[in-house]
């Protein structure tokens, strides 16, 4: 009967493993990973928008992207990772919109300049025409 304790251990090993796994899983659930990829993507897009002068041309959109990123970081701190991921994605798409609107505003500005140049040219040509 000296063998008895060993047999108990043998029989209970799967249970032991299950307990360990369960505790690990519980640890995972209580300490989930932050959505690093989404957060980085949001930060990158905001940086690119800033480089494209979005502050000047699409300030509201850029502000919104920044606010969403702040909220995402707050959600990470509160360990609401799903919410953090969503907010990070919202931040990224808002920054993209800031960039797209910046480009549109710049293009419009260039076209206005060109229009003015063309008008000046027309005036000049008109004058030349009158001289003849």
């Amino acid at each position, binding site marked *: 009967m000296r063998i008895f304790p060993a047999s108990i251990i043998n029989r209970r090993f799967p249970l032991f493993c299950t307990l360990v796994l369960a505790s690990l899983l519980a640890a995972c659930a209580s300490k989930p990973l932050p959505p690093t990829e989404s957060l980085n993507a949001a930060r990158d897009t905001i940086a690119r928008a800033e480089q494209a002068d979005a502050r000047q041309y699409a300030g509201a959109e850029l502000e919104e992207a920044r606010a969403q990123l702040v909220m995402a970081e707050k959600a990470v701190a509160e360990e609401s990772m799903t919410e953090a991921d969503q907010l990070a994605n919202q931040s990224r798409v808002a920054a993209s919109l800031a960039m797209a609107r910046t480009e549109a505003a710049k293009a419009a500005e*260039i076209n206005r300049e060109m229009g003015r140049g063309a008008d000046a040219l027309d005036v000049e040509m008109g004058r030349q025409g009158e001289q003849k």
Partner: protein
Amino acid sequence: MNALMNSVSLLKKPFGGKTGATIVLSSLLLTACAMAPETPPAALDVRQKLTELQSNPETARNARIELRDAEAAVELAEQPVDNDQTALAEHRVYMADRMVEIARATATTRQMEADRQRMGEERDAARLAARTLEADTARADAESARRSEMAAAATTAKAAEEMQRQIDELEAEATERGLVLTLGDVLFASGSADLQGGSNRNLEKLVDFLSTYPDRDVLIEGHTDNVGSASFNQTLSLQRAESVRRYLTDHGVQGQRLTVSGLGLERPVADNTSAMGRQQNRRVEVIIEN
């Protein structure tokens, strides 16, 4: 056998009960599904915006990729969600809405770029037209300049021709001092400074010439033969030259154009030993300066 049948029926019985429970549960779930999950209303607004953009051919062409991405996002936002998943629904609507707006902005940018290219081409065309006009004008100017130059040259040639004709008419001789017109002594009575007959064909022609070329100054020189004293001849030659001068001023030639000198017997053009030679030496030379 009987025992086996019994066992089957025993097996079957609880199984049948389970099936019934499953059906009841499923129907309950289905009812829940039919009632609770629905398309978020905000997604419909986004869908409407997207449809507007998609129906604009230019936008559809200019932002094809962005519209495709927006379409996927809107489709996701339109998926029914349970009542307790409003946060997810809002997230999806937010994403879809921003992506639709990105497509709109991108389309605007591309349109502006296309406009810019068109404007550039138009401006180039206008510049080309202006330059062509300028070149045409310059060419026309050059042409007219060439014509007037030719006309001027022709006029000059004609004038030169005319002058030559008049010079020929005058029977003047072109020398390096100018045109020399020699008026013979037949104009004057011997020893007299007065012009004979008051007029002379050669002098008339000289007056014509001088009035045609008013910028030509004239030197009038009197010459004599060697008969008589040098001082007498000098005085006589001067008086004869003065007579010619008076004739010219009387016929409208300005006095300041005329310079008079009496050279007496100093410059004979022929031998004074013969009568013929002496006659040739008695003369007034009118030099029309170049």
